């Protein structure tokens, strides 16, 4: 498929380009979050032998719109002795970085807001700002559950940042550049085949960072009621909800761009490929969330430091060796080798990886 690349400042001058794409990103994110919420509830429902939303609109499509309206109307309670300004600011600080991440994601045929040559570095930097928002929420709600939840979020994000970044570095080595455009261009073979271990590490780490599925410690409803979101209601809670699903959308978009070859695909038009892959990745996230129980906070930490982090280093080492020693060899040769290495490493490492049992003599 000939890669028709859109010129970077497509409609001529810079400001028109920026305006069009800013609006496109905003509409894309909000619309996709609404569809994601419906998609998750529907997919989980079918997997749990029930129906899911089917009352509002055909197949319940307007359900998330109805939820959004309901949340808009709901009264907005601010805890009495909480820190009012920080309480008001927290959802904004949590949601805005999620929007910023989409500036560098190439949607179709290389159309993106800003073709930064440090695409991935920008994504990793911006996505860790949400943690500040979450901690502000935890602190400002003057509620024990929120503080516990916020501290757990900070601890988990800090410890999962490193395996995530290291697994991305493996991809950068292969693609030869940080910019998302180049990465998509370099993916004649989707990097998921070349970097299976990198994909596993990134996916697990990303799940922990957006605290979904087995790592949803921060708003573990069975322990901390709703974690840092306990004291929020009305539109502020809506923003946090938007942020959570926005992050899931961001992670799916990043995984599609980096590991599944972005908008490139044989038959279908390129924008459709991007959407299909994003939905597939999100389905996997929902699928894991439906099945797997939750990890305890100290197991979460131990998994990050004792399992993901060493494996990420090893993966980086192996990729580097491969690139240096056989630059010329066609990449298809490496696919079976890398998959085999990934399996061996996981088996070997999990042989003697054992968590402390967490009972503290008190």
């Amino acid at each position, binding site marked *: 498929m000939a890669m028709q690349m859109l010129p970077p400042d497509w409609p001529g001058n810079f400001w028109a380009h920026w305006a069009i794409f800013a609006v496109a990103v905003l509409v894309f994110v909000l619309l996709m979050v609404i569809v994601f919420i419906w998609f998750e509830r529907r997919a989980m*429902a079918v997997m*749990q032998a029930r129906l899911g939303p089917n009352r509002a609109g055909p197949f319940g499509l307007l359900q998330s719109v109805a939820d959004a309206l309901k949340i808009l109307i709901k009264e907005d309670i601010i805890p009495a002795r909480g820190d009012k300004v920080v309480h008001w600011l927290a959802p904004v600080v949590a949601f805005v970085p999620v929007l910023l991440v989409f500036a560098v994601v190439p949607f179709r045929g290389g159309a993106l807001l800003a073709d930064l040559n440090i695409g991935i570095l920008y994504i990793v930097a911006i996505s860790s700002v949400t943690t500040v928002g979450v901690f502000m929420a935890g602190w400002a709600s003057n509620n024990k559950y929120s503080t516990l939840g916020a501290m757990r979020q900070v601890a988990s994000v800090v410890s999962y940042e490193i395996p995530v970044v290291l697994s991305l570095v493996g991809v950068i080595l292969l693609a030869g550049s940080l910019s998302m455009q180049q990465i998509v261009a370099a993916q004649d073979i989707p990097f998921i085949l070349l970097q299976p271990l990198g994909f596993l590490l990134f996916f697990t780490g990303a799940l922990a960072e957006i605290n979904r599925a087995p790592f949803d410690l921060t708003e573990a409803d069975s322990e901390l009621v709703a974690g840092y979101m306990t004291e929020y209601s009305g539109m502020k809670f809506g923003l946090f909800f938007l942020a959570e699903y926005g992050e899931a959308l961001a992670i799916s978009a990043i995984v599609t761009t980096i590991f599944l070859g972005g908008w490139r695909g044989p038959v279908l038009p390129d924008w459709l490929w991007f959407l299909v892959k994003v939905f597939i990745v999100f389905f996997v996230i929902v699928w894991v969330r439906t099945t797997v129980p939750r990890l305890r906070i100290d197991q979460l930490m*131990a998994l990050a430091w004792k399992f993901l982090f060493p494996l990420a280093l090893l993966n980086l080492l192996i990729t580097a060796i491969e690139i240096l020693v056989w630059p010329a060899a066609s990449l298809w040769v490496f696919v079976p080798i890398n998959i085999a290495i990934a399996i061996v490493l996981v*088996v070997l490492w999990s042989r003697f990886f054992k968590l402390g049992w967490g009972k503290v003599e008190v």
Partner: protein
Amino acid sequence: MKFERYGIGIAKGLSVTIRHLLRRPVTTRYPEQRLNVSRRTRGNELIWDKDKCTGCGTCAKACHIGAIHITTSTNLVDNKYEVQKYEVDTGYCIFCGLCVEACPFEALFLGYDYERAQYRRNDLVQTKETMTETPQRKVSGYFYPGRAARLPRQSLLVDNDRGQK
């Protein structure tokens, strides 16, 4: 966490959930689809047979909450007391069916209908007039197998019956 099972347990769990994508959901959409209730269901109303009732008051004594209020005339007409007031306060009644079992003359039955919610509490009190058997107000087969035979068969989840439209 021992991973020496290398994530096989998680994979098995995932295989179970994905398999449910191909199965029909088990739930029924209530207002549109309705399940047939059991033939012996203890619906939330009582049905009283005027001519069989002799006004003996055994049902009122059997009720451990005192939800049945009955007053009869004092004179005996062909060994029956003429019942002036017969009220059941279904707000108090827990539908345990002890009154139906206690009635020696088969004059009291439980209803088959389960949608009798009211907006005001004293609408819950069933008086003599609203307790007779009518085509809408069917009698449940509780404690009387003969009447159960006339009711539709119960839709059982064991037979994968999701109720009819």
